[in-house]
């Protein structure tokens, strides 16, 4: 098992490196640079002043030199300084990551707690009213983007009851109640979308397992339906569900940008948006590396849980 994990982690290095390199190149292909993006309207620098500012940020050297400098920094555990705030990017990530992780975990929780029960009910009551309602919810969740749900979650209660989730984020350890009031609506906005795909996968996986011989045998033995579902069907149908959830959660971390902005959550999404806005190359690269690492780790976690659901699986 350990060997498997180490091998997977080693394989992740080129994946993360590739993603970071792609971003390094892509952001530099865009017209303009950090200096032009950061100068204020009230400041009208001359070309010489612009060049001096570029030199100050290390942007006066060719792209490949910047790349080598950046890579050697990473090899020494230094992600560089933000071109916007001049603070170490690692510090910015440390501030942003807890917020995104909380949002990610709550979203997974919301998505899982909607998707699995609705998916199972939809499967065991196939072609009944309950199934149709479940499928309708799923189609709705798939077709409505998260940012629309997020805007509705903010605007509708505001217009109806002059209420919206509290603004000005408070950390969980300071006030758990208020913190959840701030993060849960965002998690619901994201989770509604992700639960749709997972629900459809759960339904089809459960339907498949329900037709297996061992399920029929369990019924024949006189086991109650609840026991059959819990002990035999659910556990055996979870592998594809977990796989889908894993890849969705990896993708979710990239999809949090808009939702974080709408709900004013100070996470990696907000950091990435600001970095794009101000062409803060180093912060953007660090943000993308974080997302890539999270994607790899979530998928690794998913792969290692297979054995729990199916003891026949061996990691070698």
């Amino acid at each position, binding site marked *: 098992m350990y060997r498997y994990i180490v091998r997977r982690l080693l394989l992740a290095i080129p994946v993360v490196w590739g993603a970071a390199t792609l971003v390094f190149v892509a952001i530099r292909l*865009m*017209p*303009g*640079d950090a200096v*032009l*993006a*950061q*100068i*204020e*309207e*009230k*400041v*009208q*620098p*001359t070309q010489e002043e*612009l060049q001096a500012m570029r030199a100050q940020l290390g942007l006066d050297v060719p792209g490949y030199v910047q790349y080598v400098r950046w890579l050697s920094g990473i090899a020494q555990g230094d992600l560089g300084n*933000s071109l*916007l*705030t*001049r603070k170490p990017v690692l510090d*910015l990530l440390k*501030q*942003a990551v807890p917020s995104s992780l909380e949002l990610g975990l709550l979203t997974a929780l919301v998505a899982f707690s909607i998707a699995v029960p609705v998916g199972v009910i939809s499967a065991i009551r196939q072609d009944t009213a309950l199934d149709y309602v479940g499928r309708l919810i799923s189609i709705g969740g798939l077709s409505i983007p998260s940012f629309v749900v997020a*805007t509705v979650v*903010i*605007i509708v209660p*505001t*217009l109806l009851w*002059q*209420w*919206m989730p*509290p*603004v*000005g*984020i408070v950390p969980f350890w300071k006030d758990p109640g208020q913190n959840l009031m701030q993060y849960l609506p965002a998690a619901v906005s994201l989770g509604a979308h992700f639960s749709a795909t997972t629900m459809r996968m759960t339904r089809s996986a459960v339907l498949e397992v329900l037709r297996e011989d061992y399920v029929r045998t369990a019924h024949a033995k006189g086991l109650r339906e609840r026991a059959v579902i819990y002990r035999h069907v659910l556990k055996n149908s979870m592998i594809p569900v977990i796989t889908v959830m894993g890849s969705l959660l990896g993708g979710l971390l990239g999809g949090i940008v808009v939702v974080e*902005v*709408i*709900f*004013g959550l*100070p996470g990696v999404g*907000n*950091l990435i*948006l*600001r970095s*794009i*806005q*101000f*062409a*803060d190359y180093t912060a953007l690269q660090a943000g993308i590396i974080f997302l890539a690492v999270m994607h790899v780790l979530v998928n690794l976690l998913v792969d290692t849980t297979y054995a729990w659901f199916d003891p026949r699986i061996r990691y070698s």
Partner: protein
Amino acid sequence: MQRMIGKKKIVAVLLGLALALALTACGPAAQPAPSGGDQKATEAQQIKRGGIARKWAPGAPGSLDPGKGDYWVACELNNTYGKLLEYRAQSYTDSELVPSLVEKWEIKDGGKSMVLSVRKGVKWQNIPPVNGREFTAQDIAWNIDWYKKSSEVKWLWTPVTSYQVNDNYTITLNFDEPSARFFQDLGSPWNEMLPREVWEKDGAFNKTIIGTGPFIFESFETDVRLVRKARPDYWKTGADGKALPYIDGWETVILKDYSTQLAALISGQVDLWRCLGGPEFKDLETVKKARPGVQINSYPRYNYMAISYNLDQEPWSDLRFRKAFSLAIDRQVIADAAWDGDAVWSSFVPPSLAKYAWPEAKVKEKFARNVTEAKRLLQEAGKTNVTVVDVPLPGGAGGSRMHEVIQQMVGEAGIKLEIKEAASRAARAAMVDRRENIISISTDTPDDDPDGFIGRLFESSTSSAQNRGIKDPKLDELAKAVRVTVDPAKRKEASDKAQDYLYEMLYRIPTVDYREHKVRQPWIRMPTAIYWAYGIPGMDELWLDK
């Protein structure tokens, strides 16, 4: 029985009314309207101290250093730092200056020198390394040097060629030539007085924030909030005779999304709108309905939407093409389609600067649409079927619609306008590097002085003119006249001449100026306007009536 109870009730009510009338008759006679002094005393009694005011602001900049010339910092730290003069700002177009750190001033030698008298007894906030020492004329001297050498808003102090600190409380500033607008810049929110000790300790102003203002900087969390608390020993006193500010502190929450900003206002989670801009015109009715009693002030901005281009690029180098482009545009269509009719036509000095702007009738006559003439000019210039690239800057819905209507109108005259979506820096890069034949439709640097719309944009020594390829000695002379003429009537004359010439040459095309709408919750009591040009004067006098 029921009828009896009914009668008893009526008798009781009548007796109650009679008693109330008798008591009223025995009470004091009706009071006359309070006199000025009484009114102040009544106001003082009404004032409620305490509470935290809250506003929102969009994403914070990278640095809190006021020397970077950032709007956000200028607004948010305006009440932590102090300025030599403050805007009176009793309305949104009241740009009169009133004493602040400088108590009085005297202009000498026909405008070639100015003596500033510093208010005695004003202290810096009592925080190391400044430790509450007195603010003196030496501080002004240090700031002049610092702004000119180390800030990115050097222009604030460039007119000052030398100075003498006469004593602790007076300083004489000398100019090579009179500068009519320098005085206005003393109240600019970018012109905060900064403490020398902090620069000596940190070599920057983004770590330790200490000023002479009424609020002490407490904390700043990127993408979350900025918090300040009231200073206990501020030099100004309130109507109740105690030291200002009335509130215990104020907080700015970071909200980047417009729907969220609007929802925060409607749900009562923020008390004030940000310094810059306001809710969109179309949303005002929703706000009024959702929050009865909400205070809305609408005012014209010190700015206008202009079409700019690089003059050393074809086809813009040809005056006939520029004229044709301008003639092809119907400003009223822009006002109606892009700003729901909530905009006015503008010349080179916006209508909000009423003292210097052209009269409305003249603007409408000069900038009237004439497609036939536009086509004739294009024909004459041999520039039919020319394509012009437009890279819109990110902006509100109004801004986006503006591009589309302009595209349609110039298309009718035979000019193809190709809209290319790109980030703002792409547009700026193309304009600054003068690589492409592109136009930029945007508001330029806002200003409350005509020099900001003439000299600062078109004088060939400015980077703004250089970046757009403008080099015109005649315009330089006219712009200089606006800058150095101190007499208001003569300055108006100079400004008119410069505008006439700009109209002739069309180095940019002015279009419309849309209004902004500032919103405050019903419980906010504040004597001044919050506006980007002023910062937030009067935050110390804000109190919460709830």
